[in-house]
């Protein structure tokens, strides 16, 4: 068997030898190391387990980037094709709500980062404190989002189910936009194009609800994961040596934050 032969100099141990921390200890082999309780049986050591988990999460996030990417592409193409309607759409989103939510999410990213820090320094109370902070912020985000959705429902901006093209007589935003933007005004004043605007604006809100809805569902999953971690941290499952779940869940949470960092300007901020 080849295993029994002594380790010989490895001609390929050069640049290809990038990420594998174990290739060097060829001579050691076998089961010579101790297995801490948190290391699953098929890993050599905690280091390998942690590396695998981290890489796995990054792979998953790559998947997520493209999952949202398909939606973003559709939005971009329709925005380019129907600039007037999408402008009306952006003006009817609630900028204050959006800004507050951006603040909440960025702040929650900080608390998550601090909880990872607390975990790495073995500060159990710190983990629990910061994770509870994160949960509160997560719920706050969803609350603000819900109140925003409710506002949109009241303004009849739900495509297909309850939708009306905003009337400048009732909508301040519409009035302002018609005063300042001649292209929107031209589209609005032409009865045929106004019919088109109504459909295109629905398309804006379809994408708005799909994108923010998908994002919110990620938030809900994130809150679930964080609650579970809070409980585990409270039970003292994590230590300076072992806190990989907090780290990789933190990566996920930051990713959801990054989605919002792009979603926010895409939908709320393109107002000219």
């Amino acid at each position, binding site marked *: 068997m080849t295993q029994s032969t002594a*380790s010989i100099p490895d001609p390929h141990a050069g640049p290809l*030898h990038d990420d594998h921390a174990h*290739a060097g200890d060829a001579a050691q082999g076998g089961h010579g190391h101790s297995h801490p309780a948190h290391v699953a049986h098929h890993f050599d050591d905690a280091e390998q387990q942690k590396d695998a988990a981290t890489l*796995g999460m990054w*792979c998953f996030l790559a998947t997520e980037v493209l999952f949202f990417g398909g939606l973003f592409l559709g939005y971009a193409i329709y925005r380019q094709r129907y600039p007037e309607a999408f402008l009306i759409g952006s003006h009817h989103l609630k900028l204050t709500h959006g800004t507050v939510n951006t603040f909440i999410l960025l702040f929650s990213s900080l608390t998550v980062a601090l909880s990872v820090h607390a975990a790495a320094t073995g500060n159990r109370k710190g983990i629990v404190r910061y994770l509870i902070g994160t949960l509160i912020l997560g719920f706050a985000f969803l609350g603000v989002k819900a109140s925003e959705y409710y506002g949109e429902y009241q303004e009849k901006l739900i495509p297909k189910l309850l939708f009306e093209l905003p009337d400048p007589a009732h909508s301040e935003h519409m009035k302002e936009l018609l005063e300042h933007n001649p292209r929107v005004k031209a589209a609005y004043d032409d009865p045929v194009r106004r019919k088109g605007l109504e459909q295109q604006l629905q398309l804006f809100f379809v994408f708005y609800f799909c994108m923010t809805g998908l994002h919110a569902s990620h938030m809900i999953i994130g809150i679930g994961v964080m609650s579970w971690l809070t409980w585990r941290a409270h039970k003292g499952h994590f230590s300076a040596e072992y806190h990989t779940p907090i780290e990789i869940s933190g990566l996920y949470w930051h990713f959801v934050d990054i989605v919002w960092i792009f979603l926010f300007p895409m939908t709320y901020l393109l107002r000219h």
Partner: protein
Amino acid sequence: MTAINYPESAPVVEENYLNVSYDVKSWLLTLDHKRIGVLYMITVTLFFFLGGFAAIMLRLELATPKADLMQTEMYNRMFTMHGVLMVFFFLIPAIPSVLGNFLIPIMVGAKDMAFPRINLLSWYLYMTGGTIVLVSIIFGGLDTGWTFYTPYSSQFAIGNVILALVGIFINGFGSIFTGLNIIVTVHKMRAPGLTWGRLPLFVWANYATSLIMVLGTPVVAITLGLVVVERLWGVGIFDYRLGGDPILFQHLFWFYSHPAVYIMVLPAMGVISELIACFSRRRIFGYEFVAISSLAIAFVGFLVWGHHMFVSGQSIYGAMIFSFLSFFVAIPSAVKVFNWTATLYKGSIVWSTPMMYALGFIGLFTVGGLTGLFCASLGTNIHIHDTYFIIAHFHYIMVGGTIMGYLGGIHFWWPKITGRLYNETAGKVSAVIVFLGFNLTFFPQFILGYVGMPRRYHFYPEEFQLLNVMSSAGATILGFGYLMPLVYLIWSLRHGKIAGPNPWQATGLEWETSSPPPPENFLEKPVVNHEAYNYHEQEPTPN
């Protein structure tokens, strides 16, 4: 180099992954990658024969120009079922999830995949998706074709479109998690000394495949999700009457579904590299080039999807760019074929059953690949677009490529998986039947397509009948060829000869452990200190 002695028989291992436990629960809740691979093997076989049944029905119907065997709705549902089951539930999971799952951890010298629970989850997602699709078929089916083009699928089609899309969506995540698991396993679980330059080419190919799974699948998932949203909610994401754009669907769909073709064929290429090396008893010619060409195919494969849309009203410039880039997939594919052929030169070649599949693969893949040039070239694409020429081309890749590779791999590693040898004569006969049946089925379709027969036609002008009859005749032979292995492989489970750890005298870590392997693959952690396929260091073996 140190001389390496391959033992005639490895130490007898009492406990293997099959006999550690027998109850149903120990299978359905197993975290052992080998058992999950076997679960996949059983289920993809089921879906293969369901999809194959639909194919046989289609071919029977097309033996005559008139619609006589079934009604048109039924025919359309039948080809949709064939496409959906074969593409999403057989071809895509076949090699990575069955052979990849079983072999990759062993080949890299690990005890399991990096994430055994996620691995099991993949199978459950696959089964959930598959069950949902089967339910949608049993309760009336759907007639959109596996491509789900809008606005037909989103507004006009009747049938259980939403249900089927949900099934495919769920299955998509199974595929993503399999890819993720393979990537992490290859990066992080390799045995000491097993550098990238020493990895078997099967691992390289599956690694490249996994990149496509991870980066492509989410796009088709969200796209099919949008079709569901449009159907449920009645909004016009892809409906021109409400401002949507049906062509956008095609871009998003083919962004995944073109690379998906490489998800199907790349792992088969990996299998072929193993078989050619083993049965020529030579290190594969141009190892680095074969390895890198897998990554090149995976990458370039993402840049060419627009050649599915040359007649869709895509801009001429867009078409030019996509056509230009499409030719670049041809290069790494050609490199592989030449390297395999060169490996045979001055080898010591045995025509075993797996080798027959491998050599058949090279021939059929060559035809499939070269006819791809007709599709990449703008001038000819227009004429053959959506005709039987395309059907023939991609069946040469998917059936002539993927299924030949899959069967070759199953025959090669069957002794490892089950510990038993099958009847070699039966294996050879069925390989020949599959090869001949395949060519009789699909070669006439090239001509059929060029003379103009469109795809997805239930009835057709009489002058196309002769070629259709040939194709249908071939399909029955092919169907028979596929049933044979089912019979003799199952028979071998009880009656086959005991294989021993390395019946082919092959190299690779999987042959250094017992057959079937022990629950944690190796009794002792392997250490690698040589390159893959060091057959030239073996003593010459008698025939």
